[in-house]
């Protein structure tokens, strides 16, 4: 059987000088993940990455929930590019999958329909006076971690090994749909056998586990999650994934997309409340980590510095398997070391 990571990669990933574009959802729910990503790039890998205060949401969620017209979306994307151009940078590092797909979609449209690009330039110019150059390289931040996965492995303080059994941790992945489904050539390994996360996992000593519904959507569905009465769609899709991965007894789920990371975490909790069951064999649920968070752990960051206390499904079982050196008492201490209260309940089932 071929290893999941053994697929030829044709995608180019810039190796330095990035313009960082943040994600609404990731900032909102997992701000620590973006923080640790920047920290790893700057301080561990010595890269230049600019975190510009002027960039705004790309409005991709509005675009895909159909209240933002495509022209406006193109102009908003154009503005991000303009900020980057003004900074003298040509490589984008995108934190959000929706944005990533959106930037690629806009670039593709401009390539095929130059009049659309002209319109976007005009709109941007009229509105802000800004101009832009088309980026040379757009990478999702997972691409960058992927590119430097071996460097990270060398710096690693922990391996993805279950120290209790000595075997690699069994890790299932979930690739956000917009990462590679819209433009398969823009994702490592393409749309079908995507390897961006499995290669990271394997590079750090873990075992990437395939499961039948690996490619299925998490169920965000934009408007389906945004309107409360429609959320059944969202949870049904996540449920399908959990059911599919359950027999493989994964130690954790690694995710690519900020939204997926949030859904796979929260829907486990909601399903436990509705159906009284978890898919992990215990009451906690399967820990869900993004690749940045996992990189942080491997490099030995304090889990509470990188925001793992913000997950509903507790990450402690994973930390224990890794024999990770952490202080459980620090979990709910604020920046000044003061107790800031704690959730009434964590995990999935009481």
């Amino acid at each position, binding site marked *: 059987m071929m290893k999941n990571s053994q697929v030829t990669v044709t995608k180019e990933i810039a190796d330095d000088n990035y313009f960082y574009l943040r994600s609404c959802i990731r900032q909102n729910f997992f701000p620590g993940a973006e923080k640790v990503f920047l920290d790893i790039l700057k301080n561990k890998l010595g890269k230049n990455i600019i975190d510009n205060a002027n960039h705004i949401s790309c409005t991709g969620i509005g675009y895909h929930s159909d209240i933002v017209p495509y022209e406006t979306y193109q102009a908003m994307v154009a503005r991000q590019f303009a900020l980057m151009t003004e900074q003298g940078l040509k490589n984008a590092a995108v934190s959000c999958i929706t944005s990533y797909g959106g930037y690629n979609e806009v670039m593709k449209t401009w390539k095929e329909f130059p009049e659309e690009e002209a319109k976007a330039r005009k709109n941007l110019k009229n509105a802000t006076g800004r101009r832009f150059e088309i980026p040379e390289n757009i990478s999702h931040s997972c691409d960058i971690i992927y590119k430097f996965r071996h460097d990270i492995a060398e710096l690693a303080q922990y391996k993805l090994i279950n120290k209790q059994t000595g075997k690699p941790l069994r890790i299932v992945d979930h690739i956000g749909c917009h990462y590679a489904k819209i433009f398969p050539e823009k994702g490592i390994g393409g749309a079908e056998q995507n390897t961006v996360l499995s290669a990271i996992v394997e590079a750090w000593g873990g075992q990437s586990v395939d499961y039948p519904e690996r490619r299925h959507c998490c169920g965000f569905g934009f408007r389906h999650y945004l309107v*409360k009465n429609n959320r*059944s769609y969202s*949870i049904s899709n996540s*449920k*399908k994934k959990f059911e599919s991965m359950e027999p493989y007894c994964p130690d954790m789920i690694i995710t690519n997309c900020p939204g997926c990371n949030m859904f796979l975490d929260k829907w486990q909790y*909601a399903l436990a409340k*509705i159906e009284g069951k978890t898919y992990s064999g215990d009451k906690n649920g399967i820990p869900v980590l993004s690749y940045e968070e996992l990189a942080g752990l491997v490099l030995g960051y304090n889990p509470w510095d990188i925001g793992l206390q913000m997950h509903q499904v507790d990450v402690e079982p994973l930390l224990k398997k890794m024999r990770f050196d952490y202080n459980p008492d620090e979990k709910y201490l604020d920046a000044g070391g003061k107790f800031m209260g704690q959730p009434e309940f964590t995990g999935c089932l009481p």
Partner: protein
Amino acid sequence: MSQFDFLKPKSRQIEFEQFDDRILTFVLERERSFLTCISCGGCTATCSAGNLTSFNIRKIGLSLRRGSINDLSDEIQKCMFCGKCTLVCPRDINIRNVVLLIKKRIAQLESEKTL
């Protein structure tokens, strides 16, 4: 957990692994010509009941062959038995008998309260 009442996880996928063949087997044992249906839809196009309602005899046969029989009992009642379908079927399937057998089997399953 009333706060989650708005969430109803469900699926309408045809799950072959949950194939309910109780009607299909009954029909095939008694009317083998049903095996050769190619879902051409000629029956539905000519159907007298289909002219009045959404009744789709082709889909009924198909549901049977996919083992999804849940909504069949109401649908099959719509057939008027006129026999036009049988007359136009390119594969000479005795559709009237198929319908009669389905109705019979559904009545059996309903009386056993297993449908």
